[in-house]
């Protein structure tokens, strides 16, 4: 190498690296690496959520809302979802098996009660966590309320009893301990989005932080 810029060509002297297996390389977004573990990332203590008091609410800009108890949610049509997930802290986990209720199902049930969608959504959790998403990222088979992972009830530190599951976006968008989806006419930054993270968070475009693409 003849560059005189001390490696500013970008090559890290002596770095060999470990390539992902050929069969999985195309599943790894830029800057990510595969893990077989299931790491935990949360900003605060894990909230204790009792099933008898659990509820999920969908609300619209006019103030109407639909609300379901744990039993009511569990009685809805369930789907099995196998997806790769990608955390903004760089790990990706392939073929993670989830079960839950499609957001499409909840939106249709809410519409029967006069609750209508709006272009943006603020997901709100027990413990106060929030994250914002465009409605388009939650509907048409792209997102679920998941209560089961790898065949077992979702553990509290992973977001149990139930979390939002939006596998095509960085995983902070998949709000743990979900209790409300609020439809809004305008986009409003959630918890991490206020603290420097991207408003949309598409791992394939590496939208990690405020200002990325």
């Amino acid at each position, binding site marked *: 190498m003849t560059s005189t810029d001390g490696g500013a060509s970008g090559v890290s002297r002596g770095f060999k690296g470990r390539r992902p297996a050929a069969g999985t390389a195309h599943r790894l977004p830029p800057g990510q690496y595969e893990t077989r573990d299931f790491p935990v990332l949360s900003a605060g203590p894990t909230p204790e959520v009792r099933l008898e008091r659990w509820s999920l609410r969908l609300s619209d800009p006019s103030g109407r809302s639909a609300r379901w108890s744990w039993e009511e949610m569990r009685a809805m049509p369930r789907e099995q979802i196998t997806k790769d997930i990608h955390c903004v802290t760089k790990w990706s986990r392939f073929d993670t098996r989830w079960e839950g209720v499609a957001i499409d199902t909840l939106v249709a049930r809410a519409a029967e009660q006069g609750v209508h969608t709006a272009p943006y959504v603020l997901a709100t959790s027990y413990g106060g966590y929030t994250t914002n998403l465009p409605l388009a990222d939650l509907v048409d088979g792209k997102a679920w309320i998941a209560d089961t992972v790898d065949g077992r009830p979702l553990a509290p530190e992973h977001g149990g009893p139930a979390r939002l599951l939006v596998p095509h976006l960085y995983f902070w968008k998949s709000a743990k301990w979900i209790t409300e989806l609020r439809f809004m006419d305008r986009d409003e930054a959630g918890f991490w989005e*206020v603290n420097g993270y991207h408003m949309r968070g598409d791992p394939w475009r590496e939208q990690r932080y405020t200002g990325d693409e």
Partner: protein
Amino acid sequence: MTAAPAVPRPIAWRFATVLENRAETRRTRTLILDVPGWPGHQAGQHVDVRLTAEDGYRTERSYSIASAPESAGLALTIERLDDGEVSPYLVDELRMGDTLELRGPIGGYFVWSVRDGGPLFLAAGGSGIVPLMAMLRHRAAALAGASAAERRAVPARLLYSSRTWDEIIYRDELAALVAEDPTLEVHHTLTREVGSTWSGLRRRIDRSMLDEIAWSPRERPHVYVCGPTPMVEAVASTLVAAGHDAARVKTERFGPSG
């Protein structure tokens, strides 16, 4: 002139130069970096590091910043994970004059400044000490020359769980900070120490330890907990059960950063 809508600027990738690669413990080393154009940071923030191989293959990892915002070089303390892809490279290979690509600072939540006030309670497990050390270094720098009354307004306590005496990161520096500051306490607990000379705490952080060492919930401390996930889960849940406001307990859990 009308104000243009604020378009957020991306956090730029920068080429840092390694000034020093020094040993902390058997498994950890600190890189001191010169980062041209570094915009400054808050104690508790991290950087993303990006490595590029000859064939263009790239990978990234996040590392907490160990240095105070007040100090000249940017310090990253890296724990070497034997089966890791990146940490053995950073620890074993990088030497003075090498270039390292990074961007930051990142994260606006797990941060503390003396302006936030006290009391400050920090609980660390293993290399989880790193962002908390940045807070203690910042506190020492910001309070240099402060009056006794100003120090007493931001008292700090650290409870630090390590496997053994030899694996305590920044051990001597922590002792030196305590020696010069009566408003700072550092408590060590060792979970796998087999030597007989250690007469201090010898167990994982638990309720009775926290009752004794953490500030009482009535004093409304700012709490930061950083370490492996099981340690953070246990400490944060115990503090909330003891009456601490969950909104004042900020956590950072270490996933693998190989």
